[in-house]
């Protein structure tokens, strides 16, 4: 015997590449990646992506804004870590295919003809007979029954036995390969069409997004992308009758200008409506001009029906105003000046104006021909409130409020009003001022009333005429009393009823507060009424028999509107008198060469998944050998998936044999 101490043999150290392969191809990594991808995706849906940076700053404060910005939370799907996960998924899936596919391909074609009798007898699905027929006869039966059940069969004559191996559903292995190759193709295609390349160029300093609001032609070269940029998706708004050969890509907190090798003209943009008023279709008549074309292409696109030209797809994405011409009357809201100023402007333009010796800028930002709003009327779901104009009024400090004025009066509870919405920032809802319409359907009486309230002389006269009997205002003589009346009206016009109450709270002793404020309100009402009646008389209305109900309602509504005027924020009321509507069509133009990988990938994925699930691989073997009492026939079957179903099927096949051979 050898007494030599045996040298312990360490297992050969696996090479690092093999380790890597094992790691990358491991199921644990795959599942980790799938889960990581889901979590990342969730983050991207919970936090709204690609919003203006200011919105995020407001939401998170400067510190967290910066932290989140650093880790790319505002554009998760093109952040480096997200791309990193995707990249690993591609790598891991590829490795998995590399490791498994050869086996699977082999297995697809292999009939496992080297299997041992023992193995067959140990399978879950197995049955053996001893039969009196000849081997040939049984063999014949097997070779008929197996194909009859969908199995293709191979015969092997071994040493003293015959083995027929059957197989069905080999394609499920193909399904595996198709599915996983598809994942790789789709991810690669997606990466090409995503903005990974652009991001790389930005990191290398080759592109810098433009953040200023300037004309496309003024955007410097560093923020422009040439024809060599192979994949992008950008948008542009083109007024009717105009054309463009650039696009804008939103990028981080700015944009990039993408140049196109052709130009697109929007000849006409149309919106059609259903009878109910909801939009039915958005269409643009386009003309594509390209030096390479002998005749320009004319085509109409609409939502869901893009134009594909030269690898570029042109979609109907949105619409906006294309610089509608607006004629407006600017009614001053303070002082006694009755005449409105005529203003001519265009959507998108700035209009300098002087109101009460202060400079203001009117910035018309949108015009809408239709306003389809939910209806209060239960019969109809929607109502068209007619044209509206949206604008800002900017004061000399640069502060602005935004307004939304409707051109035609709208009905509310039987009376008609001019509506004007106002808000301090785009984040707020509009709050509406309801200006009542007079008997002639105009705004004149309201303005006359408002201006009368700003006319000190008139107020003086009316205050003197009025006999405020029983008015126990805390003043001594009539002059002072009148003075107080006029101040009260001024206060009301300026700050509304709230301003009046505030004044009372400041001046009156606490224990008399209630009483005094009631008094003020009553006196104010009386004064306002007197002014209103004066306005009516001037208009030529006969008030000798009192004021009729409509006029009384008008008074209430007008006073309420004036009471709210203090918070209105514009020195003038703009009444839209006429317009010429110009629309702009919002196009999206995209180039996505990765499609050529993604679409075939999708087809493979569908095919692969159905094959994998619905063509499960199943095998049957029939082993025949001569024994003493007759022929020993062992039938065995094996399946990796759907074992329950397979057992049932096996029983049926077994029964078929039983009937044929023992029947």
């Amino acid at each position, binding site marked *: 015997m050898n007494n030599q101490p045996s040298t312990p043999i360490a297992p050969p150290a696996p090479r690092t590449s093999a380790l890597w392969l094992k790691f990358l191809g491991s199921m644990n990594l795959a599942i980790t990646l799938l889960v990581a991808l889901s979590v990342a995706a969730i983050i991207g849906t919970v936090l709204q992506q690609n919003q203006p940076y200011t919105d995020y700053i407001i939401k998170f404060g400067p510190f967290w804004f910066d932290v989140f910005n650093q880790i790319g939370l505002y554009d998760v799907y093109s952040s480096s870590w997200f791309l990193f996960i995707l990249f690993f998924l591609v790598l891991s899936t590829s490795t998995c295919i590399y490791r498994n596919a050869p086996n699977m391909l082999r297995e697809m074609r292999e009939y496992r003809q080297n299997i041992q009798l023992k193995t067959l007898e140990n399978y879950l699905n197995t049955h053996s007979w001893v039969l009196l027929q000849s081997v040939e006869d049984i063999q*014949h039966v097997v070779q*008929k029954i197996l194909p009859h059940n969908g199995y293709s069969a191979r015969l092997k004559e071994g040493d003293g036995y015959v083995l027929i191996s059957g197989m069905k559903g080999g394609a499920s292995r193909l399904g595996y390969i198709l599915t996983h190759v598809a994942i790789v193709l789709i991810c690669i295609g997606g990466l090409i069409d995503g903005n990974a390349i652009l991001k790389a160029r930005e990191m290398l300093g080759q592109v810098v997004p433009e953040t200023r609001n300037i004309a496309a032609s003024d955007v410097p070269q560093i923020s422009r992308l040439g024809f060599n940029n192979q994949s992008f998706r950008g948008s542009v708004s083109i007024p009717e009758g105009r054309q463009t050969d650039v696009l804008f890509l939103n990028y981080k907190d700015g944009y990039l200008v993408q140049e196109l090798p052709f130009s697109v003209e929007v000849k006409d943009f149309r919106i059609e409506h259903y009878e109910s008023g909801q939009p039915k279709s958005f269409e643009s008549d386009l003309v594509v001009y390209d030096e390479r074309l002998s005749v320009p292409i004319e085509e109409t696109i609409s939502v869901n029906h893009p134009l594909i030209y030269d690898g570029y797809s042109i979609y109907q994405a949105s619409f906006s105003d294309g610089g509608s011409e607006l004629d407006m009357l600017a009614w001053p809201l303070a002082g006694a000046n009755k005449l409105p100023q005529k203003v001519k402007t265009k959507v998108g333009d700035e209009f300098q104006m002087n109101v009460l010796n202060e400079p203001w800028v009117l910035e018309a930002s949108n015009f809408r021909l239709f306003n389809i709003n939910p209806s209060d009327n239960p019969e109809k779901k929607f109502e068209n409130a007619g044209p509206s104009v949206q604008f800002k009024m900017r004061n000399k400090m640069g502060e602005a409020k935004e307004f939304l004025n409707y051109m035609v009066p709208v009905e509310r509870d039987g009376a008609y009003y001019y509506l004007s919405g106002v808000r301090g920032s785009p984040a707020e809802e509009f709050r509406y001022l309801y200006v009542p319409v007079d008997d002639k359907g105009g705004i004149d009486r309201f303005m006359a009333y408002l201006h009368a309230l700003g006319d000190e002389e008139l107020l003086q006269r009316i205050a003197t005429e009025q006999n405020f009997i029983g008015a126990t205002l805390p003043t001594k003589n009539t002059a002072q009393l009148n003075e107080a009346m006029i101040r009260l009206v001024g206060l009301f016009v300026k700050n509304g009823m709230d301003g009046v109450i505030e004044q009372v709270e400041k001046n009156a002793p606490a224990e008399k507060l209630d009483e005094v404020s009631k008094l003020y309100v009553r006196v104010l009402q009386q004064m306002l009424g007197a002014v209103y009646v004066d306005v009516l008389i001037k208009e030529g209305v006969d008030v000798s028999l009192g004021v009729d109900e409509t006029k009384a309602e008008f008074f209430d509504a007008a006073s309420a509107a004036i009471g709210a005027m203090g918070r209105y924020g514009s020195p003038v009321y703009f009444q839209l008198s006429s317009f010429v509507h110009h629309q702009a069509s919002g196009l999206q133009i995209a180039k996505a060469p990765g499609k050529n990988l993604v679409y075939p990938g999708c087809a493979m994925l569908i095919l692969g998944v159905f094959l994998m*699930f619905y063509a499960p691989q199943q095998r049957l073997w029939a082993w025949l050998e001569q024994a003493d009492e007759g022929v020993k026939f062992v039938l065995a079957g094996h399946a990796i998936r759907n074992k329950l179903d397979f057992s049932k099927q096996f029983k049926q096949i077994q029964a078929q044999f039983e009937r044929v051979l023992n029947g």
Partner: protein
Amino acid sequence: MNSTHAALQHELDQQSFWKGLSLFDWVWAIIVLLGTGYAYASYSSLMDGYEKGILVSTGVSLVVLGWNWKGIRVLSLAVFLLSIFGVSRYVNGLADAEVDFFLRFLVSSQSAIMWMSALYVLATVTYFIAFFARSEYSGKVASAMTWSATTMGLVGLMVRWRESYLIGLDVGHIPVSNLYEVFILFSIITALLYLFYERRYQTRMLGGFVLLVISAAVAFLLWYAFDRDAADIQPLVPALQSYWMKIHVPANFVGYGAFALAAMVAMAYLVRANAEQKQSNGIAMTLPTLDILDDLMYKSIALGFAFFTLATILGALWAAEAWGGYWSWDPKETWALIVWLNYAAWLHMRLTKGWRGKPMAIWAIVGLFITLFAFLGVNMFLSGLHSYGEL
């Protein structure tokens, strides 16, 4: 020797697929094909290639489906007759729904859907009675109710389809365009999937569990209809006017339905697994064995996954036409991806790591919540490009 040959011949003959078809199978095929042929002959001038393709393949699939699943025949015939009846009662326009007795109480889409709702809820209760009382008879009644509810649901959708055209020719569209309509679709598909497996596994014990989801869907549907007036037929916004919608949405709901079924089976699995652990002999043991439940859970997730894959890809193709890109990371899309990844991980765990039992059952239930969020939560909490079905 010869006897073996004869027996073989006999066996092969008997088992041949075509010869295995009964007279009823042939009658079924002839009825469906005649119907399809009639529809084709009468209306093909109004249809484009796509619609003709759908008509013909619907006819053929219905024949094959009916051969493999007899219940479908009765269902189709009942739906067909009732729908035709419903449609024919509309003579003077939509207002007939208020006047005509049959429309008002049976076959206008609103009434049919109310019947569906009531029957599903009753079926749920009856299935549970069958379960707790171990009453086979109640089980049969519950099945019949589920079939009837499904019939009424389908009739409701069919008649609604017609009603949409009565509002206006340009308004008419297939009723799979808003949350209200797809909830009906969801209930119907889930019920059909369940009924298929009920017959396949010869057990009614799972009915209560599965119908529980459907009842929940019905409760939501009723709330949505009454509280939000969601039952009104609305014209399609431009983005929804697409062929893709017609296949994307139903494919999606086969997916959702199958995932819901899987989760409810998983619940039954947990109930039975607990009972086995405690070695109880209670009612829980009348549930199918764990093996069968596990298998059923796998099958419905596989089915759901396959259809969900299809639906997501169809959605991407649609997005490419409507939004200018096949993938925009819109919240709905993204959540579809999350659902898909989740079930992909589930399938991997089961198939490659061989995970079975309770953890997989719990995961399947969690999966339903993820699916639910993708289906409802996104519309409620996240904003995006998917314009239909705002709550």
